[in-house]
């Protein structure tokens, strides 16, 4: 994502209205070269705004002139390309390098009286915001949050008072608008002190709704949030969409675990048997996969329906169900009591650990609560792994 021409003042001083790149070309010579390209058809938006060394972002409509230079006007409809990359990022691909340039943007045809929405420079966040702004005339002030969403960035101190104050000054916002209001998403409040922003810039922070989809209603409501706009939700789809990244995060450690499982499974009466490593190893990997699915996919999906509060315990419950299902379905698991016990324990422990890991993704656990849970369950999970490994080895003899 290096195609950025429009970081707030990158184009300062350039006049973009009616830019003509070159004097009219002699079309007869161009079409006579045999390349089959009619230069007149290339006078599209992209070439109008071309600058050496820059590429225009495909989601920029055009530029509007302001006292502080041209400001890119963004589309409110997502293209197939935006949606495809969103899907990839939701699977953890390129998730950490998906950013837009910080600075000022526009949607619709804003003027000096139009409201300013503040957001993060994670492209997923930016897309999520602009697609809800169809038909509205607004400014969007994008803070440099290093490609992280608003809430996480507010917690990490990048969506913060200092960056907001800096960005207001950097874009010359006070010369572009004639009011003193900044609409900051409520979840940004963790990092932004309204009082400090007012003292440093004169702008008054108004906390807007949590969800971008409530923005049109919030604006009609005289910039007031209803109680439901201020309440975080964590519905089934909201949880489901997070599970691919949960799985992607464990892929690397899982691969290392697979190697260990093969090694461990080869140990037996003949010291080490390749055949046994393969056969028993595959069975153990089955338990690993079952534990990952159970802890990182099933537990998040069924989160409110598992009737205990501790995540690690939720994972133990789903892990038990998964392990019992495998015992019934997979006859190899029942060849010996020790091996069977090892596989069941292993599945449950992996499930419990990954379910506990999901506390970091949910919007309702407190750091103090997570610390308490980890202190309580990490010893249990360690014991589970050690006993499972012991039983597995014992089962080979």
């Amino acid at each position, binding site marked *: 994502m290096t195609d950025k021409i429009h970081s707030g003042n990158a184009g300062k001083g350039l006049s973009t209205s009616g830019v003509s790149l070159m004097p009219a070309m002699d079309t007869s010579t161009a079409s006579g070269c045999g390349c089959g390209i009619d230069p007149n058809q290339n006078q599209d938006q992209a070439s109008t705004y071309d600058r050496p060394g820059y590429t225009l972002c495909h989601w920029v409509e055009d530029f509007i002139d302001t006292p502080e230079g041209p400001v890119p006007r963004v589309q409110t409809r997502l293209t197939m390309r935006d949606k495809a990359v969103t899907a990839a990022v939701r699977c953890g691909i390129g998730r950490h390098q998906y950013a837009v340039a910080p600075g000022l943007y526009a949607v619709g045809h804003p003027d000096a009286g139009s409201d300013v929405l503040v957001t993060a420079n994670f492209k997923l966040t930016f897309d999520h915001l602009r697609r809800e702004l169809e038909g509205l005339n607004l400014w969007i002030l994008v803070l440099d949050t290093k490609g992280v969403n608003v809430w996480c960035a*507010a*917690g990490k101190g990048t969506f913060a008072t200092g960056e907001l104050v800096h960005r207001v000054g950097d874009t010359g916002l006070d010369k572009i608008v004639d009011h003193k209001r900044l609409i900051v998403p*409520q*979840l940004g*409040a*963790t*990092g*932004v*002190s*309204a*009082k400090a922003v007012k003292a440093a810039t004169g702008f008054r922070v108004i*906390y807007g709704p*949590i969800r971008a989809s409530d923005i049109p209603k919030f604006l009609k409501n005289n910039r007031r*949030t209803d*109680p439901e706009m*201020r*309440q*975080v*939700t*964590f519905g089934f789809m909201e949880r489901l969409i997070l599970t691919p990244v949960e799985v992607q995060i464990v892929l690397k450690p899982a691969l290392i675990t697979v190697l260990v499982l093969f090694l461990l499974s080869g140990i037996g009466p003949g010291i080490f048997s390749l055949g046994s490593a393969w056969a028993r190893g595959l069975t153990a990997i089955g338990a690993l996969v079952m534990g990952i699915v159970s802890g990182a996919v099933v537990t998040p999906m069924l*989160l*409110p329906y598992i009737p205990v*509060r*501790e*995540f690690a315990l939720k994972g133990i419950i789903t892990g038990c169900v998964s392990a019992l299902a495998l015992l019934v379905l997979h006859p190899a698991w029942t060849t010996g009591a020790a091996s069977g016990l090892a596989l069941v324990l292993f599945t449950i422990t992996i499930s419990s650990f990954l379910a506990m890991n999901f*506390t970091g993704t*949910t*919007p*309702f*656990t*407190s*750091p*103090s*609560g*997570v*610390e*308490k*849970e980890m202190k309580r369950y990490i010893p249990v999970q360690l014991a589970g792994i050690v006993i499972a490994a012991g039983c597995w080895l014992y089962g080979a003899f």
Partner: protein
Amino acid sequence: MKDFRHYEAVSTLALDRDKCVGCTLCTQVCPHQVFEMRDRKADIVDFDACMECGACVTNCPSEALSVNPGVG
């Protein structure tokens, strides 16, 4: 979010009502409706919903609120 609860009584959130100036900002920024205004001052009405995000503390103009989670 009443369906989603973790441990009870673990949050380190503390409110000094004597310092509260009644600006209502904490009721606006809290994502879990922990606060309500009572007698023109903020009051904690749902302590166990607190996730220690710190939004109220960052925005409190009179330092009436505090939250001090450990390393997390």
